[in-house]
């Protein structure tokens, strides 16, 4: 669906909310699907952005709530040769490039990320398959990393790629949220390989598939409608919604 059609959608629902709250009017936003699902995706996105306008935190729990077993799905040990070498070296040579619309493009080592201000949160992980589990995550807020790289004002989205070939994008509303962290610790220990070592993303107000594992790069961009299928994420190409707040 073209940006023009999307703009018409926004205009057609004028009064639903301040247009500025509704990312659908953003010219670089992921393209809506050219079918009725584009409309329901947009309604869900716009409705939740209104609900979340004051940027509440997702619920956090005490340590007693941590699940004894936290399921793992999809990749649980990437067979990428470079990843295997890095894993064998305790990820000492691992680097996370931060590029795109930043004043100081570069790459962070695990030690550098751990030296930055950290956040620990015990949250409920909700998988689109229906299961849910509670885990404790420790990491550096993505906002800290973007600030350290000097993200430029024209940046509107953050594209994150992984060792196992996944990629997804996040608008700044979620990317800069305090609970959106690059987690290197889980339940008080180093992040296990099965859960995305050395660093995974946590996006607590969306379904689990937005919390990518095995991060390999971060890129700040002004639009995502030209990447991949233009729908903002790898899984959107498989028929899943880019926005996964539901």
């Amino acid at each position, binding site marked *: 669906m073209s940006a023009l059609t999307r703009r018409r959608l926004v205009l057609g629902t004028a009064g639903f909310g301040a247009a500025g709250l509704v990312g659908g009017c953003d010219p670089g936003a992921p393209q809506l699907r050219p079918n009725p699902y584009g409309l329901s995706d947009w309604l869900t996105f716009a409705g939740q952005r209104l609900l979340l306008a004051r940027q509440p935190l997702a619920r956090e729990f005490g340590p007693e709530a941590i699940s004894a077993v936290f399921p793992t799905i999809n990749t649980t040990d990437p067979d990428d040769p470079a990843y295997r070498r890095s894993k064998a070296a305790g990820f000492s040579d691992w680097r996370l490039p931060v590029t795109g619309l930043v004043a100081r493009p570069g790459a962070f080592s695990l030690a550098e990320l751990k030296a930055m201000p950290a956040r620990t949160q015990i949250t409920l992980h909700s998988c689109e398959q229906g299961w*849910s589990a509670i885990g404790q995550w420790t990491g550096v807020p993505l906002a800290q990393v973007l600030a350290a790289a000097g993200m430029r004002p024209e940046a509107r989205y953050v594209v994150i790629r992984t060792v196992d070939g996944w990629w997804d994008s996040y608008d700044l509303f979620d990317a800069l949220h305090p609970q959106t962290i690059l987690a290197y610790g889980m339940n008080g220990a180093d992040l296990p390989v099965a859960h995305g070592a050395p660093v995974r993303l946590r996006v607590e107000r969306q379904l689990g598939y937005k919390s990518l594992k095995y991060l390999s790069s971060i890129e700040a961009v002004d639009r995502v409608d030209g990447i991949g299928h233009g729908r903002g994420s790898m899984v959107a190409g498989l028929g899943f919604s880019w926005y996964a707040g*539901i």
Partner: protein
Amino acid sequence: MMIETTGRPFSRARHPAWVRLTHWTGAAATLALMVSGTAILLALPKLFWGETGSNSAPAWITLPLPVDLEQTGWARNLHFLAAWIFVLNGAAYLALALLRGHLRRRLLPAPAEIKPRALAGEIRDHLRLRCAAPPTGRYNALQKIAYLGVLLVLAPLILLTGLTMSPGVTAAWPELFTLFGGRQSARTIHFLSAFAMVAFLAIHIWQVLANRPVTLMRGMILGRAGNAEETR
């Protein structure tokens, strides 16, 4: 199931257009929700209580369904599209039913109808399959209670438990978790209330088939079984 009238006999009764439109829109959305909801359930055909639940945790109930992880893509798309239609359509119906007095005059049982003795008599008649429609064509008390129960209890319960599974909505309204006792509890109640909806629909459709199906279907599609003027 019965056609609403202003006290005229059946042959002169009529469903207003907005009732017919919202009825069939809701029916289509409900069918889509049932099909897609079942497909979503196949990814984890187990139910749990509390916040957490997965294949590595003991389940309250394991449903006798095949496990299929590949259906959630299309099924979630269809479920949420149908859910938006179901909710907007239901809200429109409820608003019109309130504004036009439909709820009060057609659906709210009269005090005499819900006296224990009257209700017991109706239940007895239904169990003996002797539930002749009231001669005026009004809904009987059990129908009124069933319709109001679906409209004011079951449908809102399904909606709210569905929203409790949304990480975005619960970030804004964490009270939903408190209300239902956790995400998995909400998922379980969502399934149980959807199952109750299916049971209601089975009886609803059976009652139509058992009581002049052609007349009743004509009434809900074309509005008229005879040439009566429109009621509110």
